[in-house]
């Protein structure tokens, strides 16, 4: 990122046409625009470096760790990572558990969102949930997965009967 900061003025030329819609000649000049380097993936991730983050992956996993390295594809390296499982069992009990994992390199395409953890609220327990034993949570998670896969398969079969053909990704977890 060549050590750019948000406060730097834009450098030679305008790679992006500011905030103006389209590029009509003679369009009235809008309000003063923010420097274009603010609007890049790199600039967005730069603020998150060395911060404690909650990473949500496409398969539904939640990783909590410190962001150390990244690139323009949002490939990420996290250190001191823990994985957090959430389950809500059939009798309306909501549980979570943390599992220590170590260091992760995550390929960007699998990233759904990155949340910066507010350190003031870091130790707060998610509202409505209680911390539980890893084994218990894991068993419940498996149950939940099985239930979901079953209902997905039923839905996909019904859809197949209605419109012909199978739905993509039947029984597989997406997000």
């Amino acid at each position: 990122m060549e050590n750019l900061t948000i406060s730097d003025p834009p450098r030679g030329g305008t790679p992006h046409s500011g905030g103006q819609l389209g590029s009509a000649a003679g369009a009235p000049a809008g309000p003063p625009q923010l420097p274009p380097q603010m609007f890049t993936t790199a600039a967005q991730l730069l603020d998150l470096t060395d911060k404690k983050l909650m990473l949500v992956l496409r398969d539904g996993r939640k990783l909590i760790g410190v962001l150390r390295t990244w690139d323009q594809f949002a490939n990420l390296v996290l250190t001191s990572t823990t994985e957090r499982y959430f389950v809500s069992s059939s009798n309306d009990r909501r549980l979570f558990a943390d599992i220590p994992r170590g260091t992760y390199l995550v390929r960007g395409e699998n990233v759904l969102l990155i949340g910066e953890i507010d350190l003031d609220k870091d130790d707060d327990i998610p509202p409505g949930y209680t911390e539980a034993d890893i084994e218990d949570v894991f068993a419940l998670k498996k149950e939940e997965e099985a239930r979901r896969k079953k209902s997905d398969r039923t839905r996909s079969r019904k859809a197949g009967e209605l419109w012909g053909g199978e739905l993509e990704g039947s029984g597989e977890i997406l997000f």
Partner: protein
Amino acid sequence: MLFFSFFKTLTNHTITVELKNDISIRGTLKSVDQYLNIKLDDITVLDELRYPHLSSVKNIFIRGSVVRYVHLPAAEVDRGLLEDASRREAANQAGKAK
């Protein structure tokens, strides 16, 4: 690039982003990039009991490819300008194709 420019004009306004996994997140638009990755500040999750994992998160980076809808503040959208810009871009594209 039209929608990139369009979203840039909406920075510092409150928007709601609905993701493909059905989470809706409301927050202040801080930044957007060419892939329409979005950065939101001071977020709230609309159905927090179903999506508990963001309770201690204050600002987030959302990968553009997982966004389903963005709910915009109607008052901040100049539809005439947007329509003109779309036509102009379409005309430019048609000109290039020839």
